[in-house]
């Protein structure tokens, strides 16, 4: 039976090549855009070099201080005081990485200007984030304690600073008029690794400010690595207990809020978060609405074309009905035919997205971003394909099944 449907579908597709082209064009381009978007979201959120442990990690990126009446709010990353005296005393996490945000400064080498980003980190940072060392190694606790003027640089920085292919170990990089000895070179992290990518990594003891004082606001971020995913709720619990012990005596700072979030939540909280909620649900809702609106137009277009095509076959339908085919059989047949068309369009769409992704990757629009079509992405696009096929097939099939036998047979011209 299915084989028959398949044969009919192919025959119909061959009959009106222009219509087939329009349908396939619409389906494949719609899917291409969806697949590329999914791949992009996937690269932003799923674990990859150097952040391979992401499913076991929680991120503390900001603390919020509010007044009792909530008419005064300030938020920023945490201070070193807060991180060092409270967060680093936590027991449940296996490792605690702390680092600052990226600070940009300039470097001048061989009459060229470079912009370099500096990040101050602790030693655990190198254990939580699995950087691949091209040369040398990370700084150790001894370097950190002695405030040794050493730096780990990225491979990109090495080739920009010392020239293509040159080795950097033991040489000096200069930033803010201070020379740092290079003790390690890591493979550059992609720009899509929002927290961990930087050009130069320094021990936090070299930071010129922010290490003293008891203010809670500062520029440090924390990554908590759990022993297993089962520990994540325990860490959240411990953190909320810990917050209660943090003194914040200043006026207008009566309420202290901060949450250890999963990677995705740490972004959605900033944009959609409300109170305790991380805003993840709203984020998915927005994506859903966008995808729906985006697919609406191509779907209506496809429905329109399908209705035209199906009416063209009214004589065939009339004959089948006259010989006793039920409406549901006809509807089933048409939906299957439409699915075959959609899946053909889907295959084209995947091929097109491979091309687009190849172009995007090789253009280096976002440095070191490596978009891929993996199983998740493929799964979602297959789902989109099926939904698309169903949505655009049901209405024409229903219209067709309503056809009156007599008019259908007569309408042939």
């Amino acid at each position, binding site marked *: 039976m299915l084989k028959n449907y398949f044969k009919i579908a192919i025959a119909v597709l061959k009959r009106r090549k222009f219509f087939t082209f329009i349908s396939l064009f619409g389906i494949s381009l719609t899917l291409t855009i969806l697949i590329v978007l999914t791949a992009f979201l996937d690269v932003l959120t799923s674990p990859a070099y150097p952040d391979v442990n992401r499913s076991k990690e929680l991120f503390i990126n900001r603390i919020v201080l509010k007044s009792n009446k909530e008419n005064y709010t300030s938020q920023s990353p945490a201070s070193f005081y807060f991180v060092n005296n409270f967060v680093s005393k936590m027991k449940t996490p296996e490792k605690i990485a702390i680092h600052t945000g990226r600070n940009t400064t300039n470097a001048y080498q061989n009459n060229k200007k470079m912009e370099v980003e500096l990040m101050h980190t602790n030693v655990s940072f190198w254990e939580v984030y699995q950087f691949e060392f091209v040369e040398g190694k990370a700084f150790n606790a001894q370097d950190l304690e002695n405030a040794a003027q050493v730096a780990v640089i990225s491979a990109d920085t090495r080739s920009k600073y010392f020239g293509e292919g040159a080795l950097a170990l033991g040489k000096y990089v200069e930033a803010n008029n201070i020379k740092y000895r290079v003790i390690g070179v890591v493979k550059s992290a992609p720009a899509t690794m929002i927290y961990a990518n930087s050009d130069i990594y320094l021990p936090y003891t070299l930071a010129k400010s922010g290490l003293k004082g008891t203010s809670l606001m500062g520029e440090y971020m924390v990554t908590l690595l759990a022993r297993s995913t089962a520990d994540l709720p325990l860490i959240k619990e411990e953190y909320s207990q810990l917050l209660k012990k943090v003194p914040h005596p200043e006026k207008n700072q009566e309420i202290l809020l901060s949450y250890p979030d999963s990677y995705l939540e740490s972004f959605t909280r900033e944009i959609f978060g409300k109170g305790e909620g991380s805003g993840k649900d709203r984020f998915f809702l927005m994506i859903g609405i966008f995808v729906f609106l985006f697919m609406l137009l191509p779907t209506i277009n496809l429905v329109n074309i399908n209705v035209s095509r199906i009416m*063209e076959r009214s004589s065939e339908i009339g004959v089948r009905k006259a010989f006793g085919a039920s409406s549901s059989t006809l509807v089933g047949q048409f939906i299957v035919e439409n699915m075959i068309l959609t899946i053909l369009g889907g295959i084209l769409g995947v091929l097109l997205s491979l091309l687009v992704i190849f172009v995007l990757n090789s253009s280096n629009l976002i440095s070191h971003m490596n978009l891929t079509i993996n199983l998740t992405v493929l799964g979602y696009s297959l789902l989109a394909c099926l939904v698309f096929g169903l949505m655009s097939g049901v209405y024409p099939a229903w219209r067709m099944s309503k056809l009156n036998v007599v008019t259908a047979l007569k309408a042939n011209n």
Partner: protein
Amino acid sequence: MLKHLFKLIWNKKKENFLLISEVLISFMVIFAVFTLLVHNYRNYKLPRGFDYEQVWSVSLGDLGESKDKDSVGLMHENLRNALKSLPQIKELSFTSSNVPFSSSMYRTRVSYKGKELNTDIYRTEMSYKEVLQMQLVSGRWFSAEDNASAKKSLIIDKCGKEQLFGSGEAIGKMISLDGEEQKVIGVVESFKDKSDFKAPEPAIFTRIDTGNIKNIANILIRVTAGADATFEGKVYKLIASTMKSSNLEIKHLSDLRSSKNKETTIPMIIFFIVAGFLIFNVALGIFGVLWYNINKRRGEIGLRRAIGATASSVSGQLVGEAVVLATFSLIIGSFFAIQFPLLNVFDLPASVYLTAQFLAIVFIYLLVILCALYPGKQAAAIYPAVALHEE
């Protein structure tokens, strides 16, 4: 004729329902595209009010804690003298961190006789106007005579002046800012400093004084045309050795401007690509459906030709039908589109929406006519003998 066409479409409203809704949604997409385009283009055409070429912005970074205002003032003077001695530097001014095209903002509320205004505040010096080559509309910029005056003086831009004083005179009026009355001594051209695509907002320029000098960590430098990367490296070294800074950074305003503009243009380009693809898709769909409908009506067209209709009147009828169909969609679409200026969604001026709506209507008509022309021509080429014979 037109009435007849309306009747034809109305009789087949069920068949045409899908086509109408498709054109309707396309209209809404095109309306959004044109609203964005018109809005951004209008802002782009507005004068900037200053010149950013050959201007560098130096961010001194965090100057550390425990600095008292006297030592900051001394450091500023040392730095100024050191930089001024370089021949490539024409003029420089210390300023708050909200330099043009930066992401930094400092906003506050000022009032004049009970009328309030949210405005950007820029801390500047006497040389600021020269560095950015701003144009005065009336009054004067800060000068040495302000040092002696009892009241603090400030300068407002044209945009802020119009919102606060309307068409009246601003010079000499007292504005309440930072909890004290300050005197307006000058009006400059509107200051479009957020990006080329953002309309100017009210701006007030005040002088750096002992109250805020601790937070001043930026310098704007106007350099001569010959200043290159080597010279920039020299300036960097000079500043770094004159003061202790944690993150010294020199940026060119022209670079800041292009990266700021990208915040508008890149999302816009992505949106246009997606919208363009949708419209192309729809155009093909309309084309296909019209073509199919005409093939279905060969008999009718043949009959009309047989009783003397000319080729152009036949193709005219088909194009006319498509236009009437589009009109149905556009009437419904305009009903929705007109709600935007009426309800003042997104805070854009009504004229932007109306222009966009007009352009979108023209675009949709053109699109539909274009899609109908070829099928119409084909219909006109039908020979009555052949068409009627088929029956």
